[in-house]
C-alpha cells in the first residue's frame, strides 16, 4: 500500500478511501473529519462529522443546530477505528479545539495537520509533534521572510500606543475566531485590565471562548457606546470592518491589524494599517521547517499557501515533497472567507 492509496486529494477535499471519510471537505460528503472550526475547513451539510467538541460547538454557533446529520466528538490523544484505518486526534495549536489528524493504515502513518502553529498561545492546547511517514503541512507563511516575532512584544507595541495616544480609539483588526481571543488574552497577560470592546460579529464566538475558561477579562459590545467614551480604549473587529464606515463611530481611530501578513510592509501599507502587529496563528517559516524535520517524515505534502518554497526546501533536505493541489482553503486573515457585506451588515 502506498500513501496515495490511503489519502488522495480530489475535488471535494482530501479523501480517505480505506477509511470511508474526507478530511475538511469543501463539498458536502457522507463522512467528514474536521480539523478546526474556521469556515474554509468546517463547512455545513455533511452526513456525519467527527471533530473535537470545541470544533463541533463552533460549527453549531455558526451554522445552527442542524449543520450535520450526526456528530461525534473526539478528544486529543483518542483513537478511533474508521473502516480499515485508525484515526487519532492531536492538538494543532492553531485555535481552540484545532487538531491534527493522524491516519494509520497498513503500517503507514499519515498526519494531516490542518492549520497549525508551534508558538505558544494562551487560548489553546499546544501543538504536538506527531511522528509519521507522510506529513501534510500547510504553507500559509511558507517563505523564509515570514518569521513571526514573540507575540507578547507585538501586544506591547499596541499598549505603548494606547498610552501615547490616550485621546484616540485603537481598533485592532483580527479574525473573529481564534486571533481575536488570542490577542485579548495576550493583552490581559500584559497587565491591561480595562474593558475591551468588541465588534458585533465577534461577540458570540468570544463569549464561547470565555465559557470554555479562557481568561479574557471584561468585554463589552461597542455598539451603542458614545463616541467620546471610546477615547483611549481598545476595540477588536474583523479586519474588513477596520477600514469601513463602521469606524466613524470612533474618535480619531488608530488602525492596528494582527496578522502574520503584517511582516511584509507593502501588505500592511496596502491596507492602510497604521500599527501592524505581527501575530499569527499559523507556523512561520522556521516553525514549518522545524516541524517537518521533527516529524521524521520522509515524505511531505504541501497544501494551501506558498507551496513552491517549502517543497524546494524539503527537496534540498532530501525529503520527497510535492504540492497538494487542494482548492477552497484560504487564509482567514485575507478576508477570503468573509462575505463582503459582513462588516456593513454588522453595522445594523
Amino acid at each position: 500500500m502506498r500513501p496515495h492509496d490511503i489519502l488522495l486529494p480530489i475535488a471535494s477535499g482530501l479523501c480517505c478511501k480505506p477509511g470511508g471519510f474526507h478530511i475538511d471537505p469543501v463539498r458536502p460528503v457522507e463522512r467528514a473529519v474536521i480539523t478546526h472550526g474556521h469556515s474554509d475547513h468546517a463547512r455545513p451539510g455533511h452526513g456525519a462529522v467527527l471533530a473535537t467538541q470545541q470544533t463541533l460547538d463552533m460549527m453549531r454557533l455558526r451554522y445552527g443546530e442542524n449543520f450535520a446529520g450526526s456528530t461525534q466528538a473526539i478528544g486529543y490523544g483518542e483513537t478511533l477505528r474508521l473502516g480499515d484505518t485508525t484515526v487519532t486526534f492531536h492538538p494543532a495549536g492553531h485555535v481552540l479545539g484545532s487538531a491534527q489528524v493522524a491516519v494509520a493504515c497498513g503500517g503507514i502513518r499519515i498526519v494531516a495537520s490542518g492549520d497549525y502553529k508551534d508558538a505558544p498561545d494562551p487560548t489553546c492546547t499546544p501543538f504536538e509533534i506527531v511522528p509519521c511517514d507522510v506529513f501534510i503541512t500547510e504553507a500559509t507563511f511558507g517563505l523564509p521572510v515570514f518569521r513571526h516575532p514573540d507575540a507578547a512584544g507585538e501586544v506591547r507595541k499596541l499598549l505603548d500606543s494606547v498610552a501615547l495616544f490616550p485621546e484616540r480609539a485603537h481598533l485592532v483588526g483580527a479574525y473573529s475566531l481564534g486571533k481575536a481571543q488570542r490577542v485579548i488574552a495576550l493583552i490581559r497577560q500584559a497587565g491591561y485590565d480595562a474593558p475591551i470592546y468588541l465588534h458585533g460579529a465577534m461577540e458570540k464566538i468570544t463569549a464561547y471562548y470565555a465559557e470554555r475558561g479562557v481568561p479574557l477579562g471584561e468585554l463589552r459590545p461597542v455598539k451603542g457606546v458614545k463616541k467620546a467614551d471610546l477615547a483611549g480604549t481598545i476595540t477588536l473587529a474583523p479586519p474588513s470592518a477596520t477600514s469601513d464606515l463602521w469606524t466613524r463611530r470612533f474618535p480619531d481611530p488608530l488602525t492596528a491589524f494582527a496578522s502574520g501578513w503584517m511582516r511584509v510592509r507593502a501588505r500592511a501599507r496596502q491596507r492602510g494599517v497604521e500599527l501592524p502587529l505581527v501575530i499569527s496563528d499559523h507556523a512561520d517559516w522556521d516553525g514549518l521547517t522545524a516541524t517537518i524535520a521533527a516529524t521524521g517524515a520522509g515524505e511531505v505534502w504541501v497544501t494551501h499557501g506558498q507551496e513552491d518554497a517549502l517543497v524546494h526546501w524539503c527537496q534540498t533536505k532530501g525529503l520527497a515533497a510535492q504540492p497538494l493541489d487542494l482548492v477552497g482553503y484560504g487564509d482567514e486573515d485575507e478576508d477570503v472567507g468573509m462575505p463582503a457585506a459582513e462588516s456593513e451588515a454588522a453595522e445594523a
Partner: protein
Amino acid sequence: MNRFAALLDRLAYEPGRNAKLRLLVAYFREIEDPDRGYALAALTGALSFRHAKPALIRALIAERTDPVLFGLSYDYVGDLSETVALMWPAPTRAHANSPPPCGEGACPGLDPGSGVGVHNGSPSSGRPHPNPLPQAGEGARPASGETIASELSAEVSPGHNNPPPPTLTEIVTTLHSLGKAELPAQLTRWLDELDETGRWALLKLVTGALRIGVSARLAKTAAAALGDKDPHDVELIWPGLAPPYLELFAWLEGRGPQPVNRDPAPFRPVMLAHAVEDGDFAAMNPADYIAEWKWDGIRVQAVSGVNEHGDTAVRLYSRSGEDITMSFPDLLPSLRLPGAIDGELLVLREGRVQSFNVLQQRLNRKSVTPKLTRDYPIHLRAYDLLGDGDEDLRTLPFAERRARLETFIARLDDPRIDLSPTVAFDDWDGLRAARRDPASAGAGLDADAVEGVMLKRRDAPYLPGRPKGQWWKWKHDPHIIDAVLMYAQRGHGKRSSYYSDYTFGVWTAADGGDQLVPVGKAYFGFTDEELLQIDRFVRRNTTEKFGPVRHVVHEPDQGLVLEVAFEGLQRSPRHKSGVAMRFPRISRLRWDKPPRDADRLETLERMLKAEAPGPEKAAAGGH
C-alpha cells in the same frame, strides 16, 4: 539600535504629522544621550559616512541563503533591504561542541524524544543532503528543529550567550571611521545581532535612504517640543550644532544654557504672507503698501558672513531653514558682500525668467554637474535685505529695508543677482489690472513666470512666521476645468474610512468614440460635508474594486463631474494623457452637470501651449 528601529518602524506607517511629532517627542524623552542625538542626526540627514551599495547587501545575502528561496522571497516582498532584513538567517554557533539547544527543558509542549526517535530509527527515511549550505530559516526554534537542523548547523537559542545588539551610537561612530574593506564583515556582525526590524533600520541607515516621511524640519520641531521651545529657536542655533547634540538636549531639558550659533552665516526665520481675499481690500489703504511681482520660483535666503579667521562663509537656506547651499554652487561666487538677502531662485536664460517646470530640473539633484549649471543657469531675484554686513535690518520698516536692498544690489553689481521690481499702482483697481496683465505692467517678457502680486506694508518690520496684516499675496486666479471622477481611493489616518483621493479624467477621441483619459489626482479642496457626499456617491456607484481603489461609474450620462482648480500644467510622458497638473484640488462639485459636458483633453493642450511656449521647447531640446 532596536529602539531607534522601533521608532522608524512606527513612523513609517504613521500618516499624521501630529502623531509623528508625538512619537518623536516620546522617543527623545525616553532615550538617553548620545543615542537620541544620533537619531536626530539620522532624521535630519546630518550623518555622513560611506554608504553601503545594494550590490554589497545582495552579495551578503547570497552567501547565506538558497538562491531559489531568496528569489521567491524577493519576488514576494519587492524590496531588497526588507527581504534581506526578514530572511537573514539566525547566526550560527561558533563552537560545534556547544550543548544542544534543547538542553534546558526549553521545549514546551513537546516530548523531546518523540521526533528524534522515529527519524533516527527509520533507515529508509530521507536523510538531509550531505553537504548543504547553511540556510535561511534553519529552524530557529530550538524545540522541534533539532533532528535535521542540528546536524547542519547548531544554532543559538534567543537570548542565550548572544552578544547584545549594537546601539545606534555604536553603529554611527563605527561607520564613521570604518574603511571600505571592513564594511562587509562589520555589517554581517550587526545583522547577526539585530532582529528583523533592527536589520531593516540598519540597512536603511547604511544605504542612506531612511524615507519614512519625516522631514528634517519635523525632527527639529519634535526636539523643540521636548523643551517647549519655538522650533524657530532650534532652527536658529542649528547650524552651530553637531551630532550628538549634547548641548542642545541639555538646553531643551533645562540643564544648560542655550547653545550659541557661532555660524557666521546663520539662517533667519522667514516672514510669510497671507492670501488676500476680496473683502480685505476695503480695510487696506493703497498708500500704505508697496507691490511687487510674485515670482514662481523657490523662496531662498542667501547669507554671506565672515568668521573669526576672516574667511567668508556663504549659505543658501530654504524657507524652512534647510541648508541647500550644495545644490547651487554656481550662485555662491556672486554672494561676495556680507549680508542676508531674501529672494527667489529662478532659472534665467538670456535674461528671461524660465517657467517653474524648467527650474524643477535643478531641484533634488544628488550631484550638480557642469552640464546642469550650464543648461539651467541659476539666478537670485532679491526682494528684501535682512542683514547688511554685521547690521541686523529686521527691525527696520520695509520701505527702509527696500532702500538698503537697492543700494546693496547696486554695490554688488552682479549679473546673477538682481532686484525684484516694484509695481506702481494708485488704487486697488489699478493693481488688479496689473495683476491681470503683468506683461504690460512692467514684467514684460518675464510675465509668464509671474504668479500674482505681493503686497507689503511700508512700515512692516521683518517678523518671523505669518504675522497678520503685514504681507499679502494676491495670486492669479487658478486654471479651472470640469473633469469626471473615475477612481476613488481610501485616504489615510482619520480619512481611512473615506474615499478621499480622486482620480479624474477628461474626454478624448479614441477608436470607439470618445473616452475618458485620467489627467490628475486630487485629495483636498472640498469641505467635510462635500467629502461625505462624494464618499456616499463612490460607495453607491462603484463598478469594480481593486484593493483600496474603487472604479467609479463614468459614462456620458452617469457619473460625477468635479470642478478642478490647478496652478499650472506641464508635459509628462509618465501620464497617459501626456500632461500633469500642478497643485490640483477639487474646487466645486458639479452635480448639475452630466459627464458628457465635461472638458476635453484639447482644452488642456491649449492651456499648455498658452502656459509655456518657449521654455518647454528649450528644455526638451537640450543644448
